[in-house]
């Protein structure tokens, strides 16, 4: 019997390691969501700086508030706000996937789970504003 010769030679297509996310709009949307966490992190650092200035005394803190009211300070906060909103909204919108709620034989519609997150967000914001003496 003749020896069988295998002709298999699978061809592997390389995935670009650095710019793979440019191949698909949905990959780009994903990267946009992920990159916004840098701005959330930046704001956390900013809060630490604010606390440090507060610890230094009233004068240092007033100076810090004046810096914040400058055009550069306002621009910084606006940029952070835009990215923080994008981060929050894009994550809230996918919560029904991670946390489905089953009642009997049916699942609670996804929009209710998303709405519950927004309601929680508003409630926590009101509590913080109340603690800060805004009302």
């Amino acid at each position: 019997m003749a020896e069988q010769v295998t002709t298999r030679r699978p061809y592997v297509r390389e995935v670009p390691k650095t710019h793979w996310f440019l191949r698909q709009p949905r990959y780009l949307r994903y990267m946009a969501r992920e990159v916004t966490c840098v701005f959330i992190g930046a704001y956390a650092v900013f809060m630490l700086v604010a606390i440090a200035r507060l610890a230094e005394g009233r004068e240092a803190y007033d100076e810090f508030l004046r810096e914040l009211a400058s055009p550069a300070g306002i621009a910084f906060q606006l940029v952070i706000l835009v990215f923080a909103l994008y981060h929050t909204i894009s994550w809230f919108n996918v919560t029904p996937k991670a946390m489905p709620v089953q009642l009997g034989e049916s699942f609670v519609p996804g929009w209710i789970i998303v709405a519950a997150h927004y309601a929680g967000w508003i409630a926590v914001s009101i509590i913080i504003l109340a603690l800060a003496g805004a009302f």
Partner: protein
Amino acid sequence: MSERVVELEVLRYNPETDEAPHFQRYSVPCREEWVVLDALNHVKEALDPTLSYRWSCHMAVCGSCGMMINGEPKLACKSFLRDYRGVIRVEPLAHFPIERDLVTVIDDFVAKLARVKPYLIPKEVKPLEAGEYRQTPAELQRYKQFTLCINCMLCYAACPEYGLIPKFIGPAAISLAHRYNQDSRDGGRGERQEEIASAEGVWECSFTGACSEVCPEHVDPAAALQQVKIKSTIDWYLEHTMPWLNK
């Protein structure tokens, strides 16, 4: 019935003669109701019998004809030609090695599927005369969506993580593991967790969500994976804060 000519650009690869794949163009006279698979069948029957591709049912049930159509993972039997303008580019499923033309090597997926034990491991083994394992409609509903997977592997072709890190067990296999873990009759979760709660399992997923966007059966693998992450995290905390529970 109206007829128009569609230009197909098909990625060809012959392991016996080609160093690398190349595109070949075919002009296919097609009918209004044709799908891409019909056009490929026409090429094979009338223009070029050497073209290789997988297909079987022609009704989005068998999961064989998954391929990249204009860069998007699709079932060729579910992609109507009338929905495309200009040249239609057909390539084998991304992230899998090419065996020949549009046929990919799927051994990796099949091995991963076996690893997650996608079958019922009864909680308690009953003798035949004790009757069937019963379940309420609500218990069925809990996992029903994840039973719809047809193993077409479109989710693997869409998943950027799988493309970059091939050891990732991937969307379909983990979704099927989750399907059995969610089944009230099943007692095999511990065995499956060994595979899916590992670094190669759900923790390789960064929730791009592409798997769910391309799934032709609306299984929503991204949902299954996030649910496995949450349950695995709860396991970890219970194990480390209440070790007596594990006895």
